[in-house]
């Protein structure tokens, strides 16, 4: 829209017509206070804090509802305005308790800040305050009614933002109250409750301490914590979560998770897992000492030195006697990129095996192959907020990727994006969709054929043939379509869908997976047939050449995948199994007896089903206790920072390095650190004997210093950047905590479409589960229990009164 010129506080400003005065002022660095205004939500004008004087208007006007106009002259801070705001505060404080010293919001409360600024400490109101007892609406949402200033932010956030509509406003005037959707008389315990997605966005939006979080309330004060912005460990969206940490006697404890500065890829949003499910770190079952199985079958705590010695010696012995091919390695979905890369490099160059896999939650290999040679065809999570039209095939973002769902809802609400959904289930996002096609069970394959032009497959795709035909027509007419693909689509179906999408101009793709670094695990080559960057094992890519040069046992053939590893174990062909941060025994229902003749080393936080079968358990740090980078399902790389700390545990990175060291590995070949010897010219690390040190040359060319420590994940990040196609990382962007979009597609000339098994096993997590890790989060168990108390919600079936 055309720009208009106006004057605020004597400053000449310009903003697009239609901009709200409060937003225009914010952009110009002029703060107008407001309680009820929240960017992106509907306007309320309930709090009257944002009043300003506009020339030629008879009364003070609310800046949050006034669009800027040509020639407007505005005053935002005059004695008259200060008096009006002070009067508003006095009215708000009429019923507000003075419990700031114990209130959770104390120190980061908007009402407190405004009272300090405008000085409404004295009040003319002598009436007694309207006190009510606090209410526990759910294990995570508590409501302190007297603190509420009735700004309606929570009501709008829940309705418009989350599309849940669990909060309403009841009664009238000064006795108005925010009410949850399960009233006391309808509840088994005669107390009001919320039946909702428990995201905690209402708590986030609350400008005061009326809504507080079950995990954090009364635990500490905001200024007593350090705040570390890192990436959530749970789903594949990779939202930024700010963890509040406090020192304890054995490390530092995470006491709060929230979306403090809203600077992350997730914008305003954070779901219940990012907000509350950090408590697994403090679970009583946490292993904090290395455990070695004794001859009597029991675990005994040993020192780190003893445990690592044993693992190193045993791995070396088994490699040398039974060969690297007899060893299996399984990595996790919550490792950092650096750890995943190091683990596969360790497996391939130190253990000498390609028997490496992870729990695959989406078929990224086919995705990367289908997009080989394409540029600008992969979508970032940020695109879900701006794309003019979006097609979702499969998946249920509301449950599996709440951040994606939030962005899509926001995009539909604010930008009128067109949403098209094809799913075999009536997923909740269909409420925002322009067109929804309910597919027959297992109808995805038929749908991809139908989209590609095979009319005969219409009947097996969906029962509504006319709807399906209209759906295809409208999708085909879209430009710059964003195509979100659920993990139901794999292999040939996935390639067919992408091939169809590539015929649409400007279409972009994303494949949704389940955990913080599921994408990274695939990108980093935790796969038996793919090296990092989807370079096929045995190919002649630069990366493969370097690996082969370092490989003792010339493992040029693809290794065993997850299932084959356990088959081999059952047949007695597996000498050792090295499991890093994964629980395959539970996930794949492995028979415990299969592993009885295998030397099993497990790096884990808890005594999981897999750890219970181990010979050595090495206590591991979780993603909140380490530094590195992760890649979300869209391919957005973000930095992970160390927040919590627990005495006794080690990061997976450190353990891999130390095991390699105990095996007598040339450490500089595994982790490129330090400078070569003075006379060496770097050959000690070179791919070929006598060749110059490629890494060192690359570092010099990039103007980077060699890393000093083998435990520095940045040393591996350097190598990832050097070798993995698509990981051309911007350091400044990464290290300042921002996200950057990467498109690691398979090298086009190396793509060979084979009939490989995709082995995708979706995690099927609900809003309140998160794989094995989720079991150890008390808050998630409480929420599951809470959810089981009431019948399944009718939320998705009912239209709401709110516009």
């Amino acid at each position: 829209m055309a720009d208009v010129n106006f004057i605020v506080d004597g400053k000449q400003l310009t903003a697009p017509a239609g901009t709200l005065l409060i937003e225009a002022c914010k952009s110009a660095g002029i703060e107008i206070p407001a309680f009820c205004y929240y960017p992106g939500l509907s306007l309320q004008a309930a709090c009257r804090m944002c009043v300003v004087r506009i020339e030629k208007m008879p009364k003070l006007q609310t800046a949050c509802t006034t669009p800027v106009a040509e020639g407007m002259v505005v005053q935002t801070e005059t004695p008259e305005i200060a008096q009006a705001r002070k009067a508003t505060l006095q009215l708000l404080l009429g019923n507000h308790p003075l419990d700031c010293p114990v209130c959770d919001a104390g120190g980061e409360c908007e009402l407190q800040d405004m009272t300090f600024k405008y000085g409404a400490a004295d009040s003319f109101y002598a009436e007694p305050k309207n006190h009510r007892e606090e209410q526990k609406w759910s294990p995570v949402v508590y409501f302190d009614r007297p603190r509420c200033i009735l700004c309606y932010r929570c009501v709008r956030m829940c309705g418009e933002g989350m599309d849940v509509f669990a909060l309403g406003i009841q009664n009238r005037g000064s006795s108005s109250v925010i009410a949850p959707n399960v009233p006391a008389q309808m509840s088994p315990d005669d107390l009001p409750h919320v039946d909702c997605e428990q995201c905690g966005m209402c708590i986030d939006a609350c400008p005061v301490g009326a809504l507080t979080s079950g995990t954090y309330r009364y635990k500490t004060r905001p200024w007593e914590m350090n705040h570390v912005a890192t990436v959530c460990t749970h789903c594949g969206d990779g939202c930024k979560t700010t963890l509040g940490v406090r020192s304890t006697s054995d490390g530092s404890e995470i006491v709060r998770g929230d979306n403090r500065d809203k600077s992350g890829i997730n914008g305003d949003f954070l779901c219940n897992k990012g907000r509350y499910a950090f408590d697994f770190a403090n679970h009583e079952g946490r292993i904090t000492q290395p455990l070695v199985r004794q001859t009597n079958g029991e675990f005994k705590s040993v020192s780190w030195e003893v445990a690592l010695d044993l693992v190193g010696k045993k791995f070396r012995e088994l490699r040398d006697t039974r060969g690297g091919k007899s060893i299996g390695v399984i990595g996790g979905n919550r490792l950092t990129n650096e750890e995943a890369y190091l683990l596969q490099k360790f497996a391939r160059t130190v253990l000498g095996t390609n028997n490496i896999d992870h729990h695959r939650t989406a078929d990224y290999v086919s995705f990367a192959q289908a997009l080989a040679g394409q540029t600008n065809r992969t979508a970032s999570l940020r695109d879900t907020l701006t794309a003019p039209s979006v097609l979702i095939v499969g998946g249920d973002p509301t449950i599996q990727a709440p951040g994606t769902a939030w962005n899509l809802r926001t995009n539909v609400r604010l930008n009128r994006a067109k949403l098209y959904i094809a799913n075999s289930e009536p997923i909740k996002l269909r409420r925002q969709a322009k067109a929804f096609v309910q597919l027959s069970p297992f109808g995805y394959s038929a749908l991809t054929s139908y989209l590609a032009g095979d009319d005969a497959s219409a009947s097996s795709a969906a029962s509504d043939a006319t709807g399906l035909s209209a759906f295809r027509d409208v999708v085909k007419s879209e430009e710059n379509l964003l195509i979100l693909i659920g993990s139901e689509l794999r292999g040939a179906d996935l390639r067919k869908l992408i091939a169809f999408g590539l015929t649409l101009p400007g279409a972009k793709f994303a494949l949704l997976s389940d955990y913080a670094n599921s994408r990274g695990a695939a990108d980093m080559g935790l796969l038996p047939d793919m090296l990092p960057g989807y370079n096929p094992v045995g190919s002649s890519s630069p990366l493969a050449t370097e690996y082969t040069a370092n490989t003792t046992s010339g493992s040029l053939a693809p290794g065993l995948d997850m299932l084959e590893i356990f088959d081999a174990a059952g047949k007695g062909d597996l000498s050792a199994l090295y499991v890093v941060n994964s629980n395959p025994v539970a996930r794949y229902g492995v028979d415990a007896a299969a592993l009885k003749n295998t030397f099993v080393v497990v790096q884990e936080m808890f005594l999981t089903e897999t750890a219970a079968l181990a010979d050595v358990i090495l206590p591991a740090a979780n993603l909140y206790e380490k530094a590195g980078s992760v890649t979300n399902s869209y391919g957005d790389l973000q930095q992970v920072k160390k927040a919590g700390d627990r005495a006794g545990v080690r990061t997976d990175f450190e353990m891999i390095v130390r095991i390699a060291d105990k095996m007598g590995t040339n450490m500089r070949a595994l982790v490129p650190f330090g400078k070569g010897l003075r006379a060496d010219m770097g050959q000690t690390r070179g791919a070929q004997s006598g060749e110059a040190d490629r890494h060192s040359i690359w570092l010099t060319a990039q103007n980077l210093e060699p890393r000093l420590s083998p435990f520095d994940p940045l040393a591996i990040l350097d190598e990832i950047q050097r070798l993995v196609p698509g990981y051309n990382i911007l350091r400044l962007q990464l290290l300042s905590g921002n996200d950057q979009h990467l498109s690691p597609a398979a090298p086009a000339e190396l793509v060979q479409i084979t009939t490989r098994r995709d082995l995708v096993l979706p995690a099927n997590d609900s809003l309140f589960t998160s794989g094995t890790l989720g079991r150890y989060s008390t808050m998630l168990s409480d929420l599951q229990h809470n959810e089981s108390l009431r019948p399944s919600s009718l939320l998705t079936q009912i239209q709401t009164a709110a516009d």
Partner: protein
Amino acid sequence: MSTVANSIFSPELAARFDHLVTIYPLRRSALVPMLLYAQDELGYVSDAAVAEIAERIEILELDVRNVLSYYSMLRTKPAGKYNVQVCTNISCMLRGGYEILDHCKKTLGVGHKETAPDGVFSLEEVECIGACCWAPAMQINYDFHDDLTPEKVDVLFQMYRDGQGKDVK
């Protein structure tokens, strides 16, 4: 969609509701009249009524409760057979409205928004009922009584107790 199986309302009212939701540009505009009619039939707006109205209008029960709780004329608890509503707004106040209210409280033995144990009368103090010309005034169910004195009130109550009062709906 508007018809509901196993309606808790009488067939006549159910039919009326079926029609009501069709006559507004937005279905939810039928909410307030529905609540009033439901209260007239049931004596109050029960949880079951809230559920059925939400179903009929296709909104959330929470939305119904939000509106229901806003209006003081809508009740969520049963009132007496005859609901006595005494006006104490300015005209009635000047002409003795509080005297009438106090008299009612004493005679019926109940306070504001309370129901006598026998369930015949309930009492409510209300704002202006639009009978200022004949203040003080009260409304018993939908029937108006004006120019009141405590004596006249006693006569009225006896009349209703004897079953001779009008029961206007």
